[in-house]
């Protein structure tokens, strides 16, 4: 039965259809794995095993009636940033410790409508602010991976962030896939350091309605899965126009699963020369070269492209994202929902509530954001950042004239240990150096596991596509996946 947790979604869907096993059995296997996995990794903030069993039963009933959806009976993890009706939703913040939404986010509803089963709400960095899952108000997530070097084998590693719980659950084989959100790399970086696939679609592809906002102009929902096919299947279900989100785009959603496995012959793969950054480990660059060679061998054409403003992406991101966050998080004031810490007057109630409810990183970003929007600083920071953002977008438009997909590393290195980079926010922020650029341009990106570092830890490569051209992205990612043949599994599997 344990084998069930090692299946891909595509395999499970086929075998469920053949009635080789039931949704109840598939879910039970995952619940068992998740119980062990939770003890080992703390991947969930809230588990919903009872709900999962009910949903699995209902799925089997649908199958008996012949009315199954695309993901019927598939057990998933749901990032605890997605509001789920009747299930506590915290954003990994103590300020929402008691918050139970009365509504279901559009994307989670679409997954449920397709028959998905929810194992629980996965852990994350508080309000999705982090790259290590160490800013959660509900404890760190420990990666199912550990280092190969004997002296360091005992170290507990980060699963990346902010979708760290989702990544750990999928890599650790106790969820078949999970939802994430990606504001600056929060799907792709954890996917890279845990050896799985992560997709951040084009801005506007998925509805943001019901997903707790971090930085509205950058946030996008997307899947974490173990194969490109599974990610394509997940995204096809999650995507779609939503009139309740004014920034969602009314574009048809193609069947992304038809893109995988197609030939990349003649596809132009762009290598941005500015992504050769000082201080990046040699093995990261070597993997990148290897990835390019794999695609060339598969028939693609590798071309050099230029993204001259890419070097400003990180500072621009760390102005715009905190600016929007400082405003988005103003609603957590203890007045209408969530935790309230009383005070002598309104101001002291605000101070007590937000002081107790928000963690250090969240407070830091609120302060940065408040500062860059302040009178006298707005032009120098926020406005300037918006102008550079436009330049970054133009860079991509220019680059995509000579290529179809851009290939880069996803993260600077393999997973680091919990506690590392903790005292130096700048070091931590550098985790996003390869990923934030496309968020600023609103473009889709995918991370595919390609190899292992010298320490035996997984490393991914990132591909960036044109806006709303996820089809080409999936095609290229699938070719890379096939060529890389990544089969390594973490030492811990639920």
């Amino acid at each position: 039965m344990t084998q069930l947790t090692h299946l891909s979604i595509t395999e499970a869907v086929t075998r469920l259809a053949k009635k080789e096993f039931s949704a109840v059995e598939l879910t039970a296997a995952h619940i068992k794995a998740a119980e062990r996995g939770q003890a080992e990794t703390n991947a969930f903030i809230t588990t919903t095993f009872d709900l999962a069993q009910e949903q699995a039963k209902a799925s089997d009933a649908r199958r008996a009636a012949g009315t199954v959806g695309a993901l019927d009976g598939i057990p998933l993890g749901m990032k605890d940033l997605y509001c789920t009706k009747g299930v506590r939703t915290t954003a990994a913040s103590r300020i929402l410790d008691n918050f139970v939404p009365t509504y279901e986010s559009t994307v989670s509803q679409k997954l449920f409508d397709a028959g998905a089963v929810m194992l629980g709400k996965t852990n994350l960095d508080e309000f999705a602010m982090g790259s290590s899952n160490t800013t959660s108000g509900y404890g760190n997530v420990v990666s199912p991976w550990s280092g190969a070097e004997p002296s360091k084998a005992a170290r507990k590693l980060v699963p990346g962030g902010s979708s760290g719980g989702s990544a750990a659950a999928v890599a650790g084989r106790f969820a078949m896939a999970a939802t994430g959100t990606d504001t600056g790399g929060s799907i792709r970086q954890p996917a890279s350091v845990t050896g799985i696939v992560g997709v951040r679609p084009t801005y506007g592809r998925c509805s943001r309605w019901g997903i707790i906002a971090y930085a509205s102009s950058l946030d996008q929902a997307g899947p974490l899965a173990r194969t490109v096919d599974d990610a394509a299947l997940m995204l096809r279900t999650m995507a779609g126009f939503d009139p309740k989100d004014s920034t969602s785009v009314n574009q048809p959603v193609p069947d992304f699963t038809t893109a995988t496995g197609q030939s990349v012959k003649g596809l132009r793969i762009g290598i941005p020369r500015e992504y050769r950054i000082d201080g990046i480990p040699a093995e990261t660059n070597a993997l990148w070269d290897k990835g390019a060679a794999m695609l060339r061998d598969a028939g693609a054409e590798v071309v050099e492209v230029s993204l001259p403003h890419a070097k400003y992406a990180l500072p621009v991101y760390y102005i715009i994202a905190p600016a929007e966050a400082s405003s988005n998080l103003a609603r957590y004031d203890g007045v209408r929902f969530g935790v309230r810490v009383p005070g002598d007057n309104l101001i002291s109630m605000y101070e007590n509530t937000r002081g107790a409810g928000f963690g250090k990183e969240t407070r830091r970003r609120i302060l940065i954001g408040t500062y860059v929007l302040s009178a006298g600083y707005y032009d120098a920071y926020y406005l300037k950042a918006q102008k550079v953002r436009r330049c970054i977008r133009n860079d991509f438009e220019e680059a995509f004239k000579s290529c179809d997909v851009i290939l880069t590393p996803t993260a600077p290195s393999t997973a680091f240990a919990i506690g590392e980079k903790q005292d130096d926010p700048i070091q931590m922020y550098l985790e996003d150096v390869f990923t934030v650029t496309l968020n600023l341009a609103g473009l889709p990106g995918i991370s595919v596991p390609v190899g292992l570092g010298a320490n035996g830890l997984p490393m991914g490569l990132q591909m960036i596509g044109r806006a709303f051209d996820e089809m080409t992205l999936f095609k290229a990612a699938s070719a890379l996946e096939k060529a890389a043949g990544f089969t390594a599994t973490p030492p811990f599997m639920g």
Partner: protein
Amino acid sequence: MSIVQGTTGPWEMVIGLEVHAQVTSEAKLFSGASAAFGGAPNAHVSLVDAAFPGMLPVINGTCVEQAVRTGLGLKAQINLTSVFDRKNYFYADLPSGYQISQYLQPIVGKGEILLDLADGSTRTVGITRLHLEQDAGKSMHDQSPTETYVDLNRSGVALMEIVSEPDMRSGEEAAAYLKKLRAILRYLGTCDGNMEEGSMRADVNLSMRRVGDPKLGTRCEIKNVNSIRFVMQAIEYEAQRQVEILESGGTVHQETRLWDTGKGVTRSMRSKEEAHDYRYFPDPDLLPLKLDPAMVEKIKATLPELPDEKRARFIRDFGLKAYDASVLVAERASADFYEKVAKGRDGKLAANWVTGELFGALNRLGKGIESSPVSAEALGSLIDLIADATISNRIAKDVFEAMIETGKPASAIVEEKGLRQVTDTGAIEAAIDQILAANADKVAEYRSGKDKLFGFFVGQVMKATGGKANPAMLNDLLGKKLKG
């Protein structure tokens, strides 16, 4: 009264107004919740209005159309692209911690309003801009001795902020501006203009300068004044206060003040230094608002006739005096009523009846023209009876009173009370003869040159005929008889 006489010389007021007008719309600006006034606390609140996690605003197309309609009514520039910004500040009745407003790129740009002043003259006041924004909720401090309660019914209701140029020079002009703006909004159907319910509120910006000085002085802003009368009182008070400061060698500090209705004074609310830093930035949840030029044209084509045009037409077509025309067009309902009465009749006579007898009666009854006990048709029929000499103007006033009381048509009252005018020469002559005979001494006096007694004889004959004698015939016959 635009000049304030100080001890060191005359001062001039410079006034600009910011009016918050609630958009007439079923739903709120960014949510589907009802925008109706009243209701139990928190009865009209959606998850968006209460800023629950993950909730997003979606613009209400009706509110956008209403803003465009208002802009066109103010002869203003319509901006085909405008941007919603967040105005950030913390308050218990502001659920999201920011108000969605329009800061740098409003939906409507420069326009103008023509003021009708009491002396019949007009004056143009510039409109700087009009933008759409959300209203906040209401904090209730009187529900508990220790806690504040919050009612979010108004949270998210659409407001138009209409900003004028500093073109007004007196409280009267400010009042005329508010009246005219309210009339235009009501004509357009974009705001009900009800100041008591708070659907129209004004912030007054006022500074003083020496008469003839082209430079503007430092202004104070008086927030949320909720009646035209209070606006005038606040201006009066604030002008005096500033002149006293300036004349005693002090400086006026730029600040926000409140009008204290009870004490009749303005009080400092916060200084410029204490002013909020609102950290405006474009709302990333909303794309820039793009208007289809065809939509703007469509609205333009369906604009109603506005007060200025109507007034000009009344003067031109009905020969009204400027003042009467202004009074009639102040409310669309009055203008419509008048037009029904005047149609096919003497326009001036109709205007006299509507602005005189009818408005007087409605005032007395405390009723609006919409609930007038005498309809436009009924008043028209009464005027017809005067025109065809069935009754005199004076008798008509009695008939009108009876119409107000009973609601019966004029003709019925005339018949019932036998008020039909006497036009029978014989009957009038007989009455004259009788009066002249009974007042032989006065007849003699008249004939010896005391002309003024003519009126006395008219009065006596009218009395004898119960007021029904046709006045023209009476005058004519009496004149002949007295001449002997």
